[in-house]
């Protein structure tokens, strides 16, 4: 089947009418081109948006207190309450399947007043009281020194890990901050490390201007007692935080005498759910890309089928001669099928090559542009699997496109085929 004569005949048949072959091939080329570009664009958008999540562990929820909206056990509605440090232990006891439970407190905030000073330099920074695990939930890269550890927590050491942004403002002359002291609301903390943080929701600048101190020293220094501002809770890898969320909230409601049906008392943000929504969006987007791409491809394939029909009609007499000389129906059929598969694959491969070329160029442009880090588009790409799927689609469709013309070619009796002029 795969001999030189057959291929030379395929080439002869396809080159007999260059323009027609080219137009036909363009249909398939365009279809596969659009399919790959669409899929890559979807992937790029997905990468961009997911990059927006930063390095945060996505199986995570955040939980904070609001006001009780229902009276319960003699307590009025509208009551304010706070999480206590004891809640962490009771959640750990009563809800299995959680990896990290980090209670957190915070000073300052966006556009807060200047609260941190060092010598003559002051600045307004977010100051967090944290446990060491937080670095696994909202990862930062330590650029020098170290992060908070359990020794700091146990001994209530007044130490601080500062962002590169903080360092820039408080140590403007490139001094070495580690071992030096900064004053947070009048309390001195020794700097033990510096960090940078990956882009998170577009506030990359803000992310570098944070200060982490041990939770226990934070509570003591700033008079928080056993209060907990909010918690970041991460489920184990094989659990879903969305499923555990209700149990967790149940525990703190019991602890704080909140009505079991009071849905407003405990605020929460489920990152996993958000992540899933985004994921779902991209699955849908991918579906649309496939749908549109395959439809365009289909019209290209119909074009090939159409052309092959014409080719068969034109070659009716030739096919008749060949059959009189002893070409079996399969030899004729195989010839037509091979022609159509060959045309589909060649044009499809060209389409794949062209589209990946375009993707390569876009990637080059994105890399060269520093602003591109903040756009919702990153690293558009297609899997090898997608290319493989496209190839399979191409071969089968080439076969389908050739099937009808091939059938037409052998349906005519050799005697009728010979009579046509």
């Amino acid at each position, binding site marked *: 089947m795969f001999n030189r004569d057959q291929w030379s005949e395929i080439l002869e048949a396809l080159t007999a009418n260059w323009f027609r072959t080219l137009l036909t091939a363009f249909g398939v080329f365009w279809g596969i081109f659009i399919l790959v570009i669409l899929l890559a664009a979807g992937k790029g958008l997905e990468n961009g948006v997911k990059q927006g999540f930063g390095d945060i562990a996505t199986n995570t929820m955040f939980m904070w207190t609001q006001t009780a909206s229902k009276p319960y056990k003699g307590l009025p509605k509208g009551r304010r309450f706070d999480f206590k440090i004891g809640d962490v232990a009771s959640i750990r006891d009563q809800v299995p399947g959680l990896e990290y439970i980090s209670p957190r407190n915070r000073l300052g905030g966006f556009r807060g007043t200047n609260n941190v000073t060092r010598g003559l330099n002051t600045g307004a920074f977010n100051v967090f009281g944290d446990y060491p695990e937080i670095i696994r939930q909202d990862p930062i890269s330590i650029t020098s020194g170290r992060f908070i550890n359990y020794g700091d927590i146990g001994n209530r050491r007044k130490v601080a890990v500062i962002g590169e942004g903080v360092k820039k403002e408080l140590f403007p002359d490139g001094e070495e901050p580690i071992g030096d002291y900064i004053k947070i609301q009048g309390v001195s903390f020794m700097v033990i490390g510096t960090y940078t943080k990956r882009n998170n929701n577009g506030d990359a600048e803000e992310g570098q201007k944070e200060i982490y101190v041990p939770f226990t020293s934070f509570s003591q220094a700033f008079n928080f007692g056993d209060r907990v501002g909010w918690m970041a809770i991460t489920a184990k890898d094989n659990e879903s935080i969305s499923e555990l969320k209700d149990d967790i909230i149940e525990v703190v409601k019991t602890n704080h005498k909140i009505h079991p049906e009071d849905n407003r008392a405990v605020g929460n943000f489920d990152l996993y759910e958000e992540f899933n929504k985004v994921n779902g969006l991209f699955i849908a987007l991918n579906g649309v890309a496939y749908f549109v791409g395959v439809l365009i491809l289909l019209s290209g394939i119909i074009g090939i089928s159409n052309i092959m029909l014409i080719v068969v009609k034109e070659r009716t007499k030739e096919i008749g001669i060949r059959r009189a*000389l002893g070409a079996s129906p399969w030899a004729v059929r195989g010839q037509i099928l091979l022609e159509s598969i060959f045309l589909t694959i060649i044009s499809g491969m060209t389409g794949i090559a062209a589209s990946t070329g375009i993707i390569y160029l876009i990637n080059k442009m994105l890399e060269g542009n520093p602003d591109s880090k903040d756009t919702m588009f990153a690293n558009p790409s297609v899997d090898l699997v997608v290319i493989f799927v496209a190839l399979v689609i191409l071969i089968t469709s080439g076969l389908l496109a050739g099937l009808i013309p091939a059938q037409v070619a052998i349906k005519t009796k050799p005697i009728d085929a010979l009579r046509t002029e």
Partner: protein
Amino acid sequence: MIEIKDLHKSYQMGSNSLHVLKGINFSVKEGELVSIMGSSGSGKSTLLNILGMLDEADTGSYFLDGMPIKNLNEKIAAKYRNQFLGFIFQSFNLITYKNAIDNVALPLYYQGIKRKERIEKGMHYLSKVGLADWATHLPNELSGGQKQRVAIARALASEPKVLLADEPTGALDTKTSYEVMELIQGINDEGKTILIVTHEPDIADMTKRIVNLKDGVIIDDTIVKQVKAAAYV
């Protein structure tokens, strides 16, 4: 070589049925050179198509070299055509984009013979018809007589048992016709069985036996004294 008994064939023309062959009995021995004559519509081409397994009879039996030819599917018919029969057509029916040698070698291609051997054999038959020098020429670079000779070489290439020629000289002038007939006679002299359909009496006279067909029946079947085409060339 060929045994035909009570062959019937009719064509469906819309609602009418056209009875073309009305009981043909006919046999050809090995080495014969037979011409089938008749006016147009007499059924001679139909008969040749049935003999050539391009068409199938409605009823009747057909033996080729002792082998019954009936209920053939296309695959087997193609194989038999390739192995047992060589066709020569009025309009030559060469493949226009193949050169002479590739045209001649085409039946061998369908026998699955390797390219080198095909070309060798093809060249052998091409020189037999005197066109070895024209091997790489395309059909449209050849004259009518040359084309027909390429077609004859092609028919011979698969070494068939029988050659079937449908008006082989119909598209040629008299002189070229005689040249082609001379070639055919030469091939017959070497022992090949040949059937020629023609309506030209002078061509028929160059065969050894004339079968006359009229309205689907054989009205006359006589052995004649062969006129050698070489006498005219």
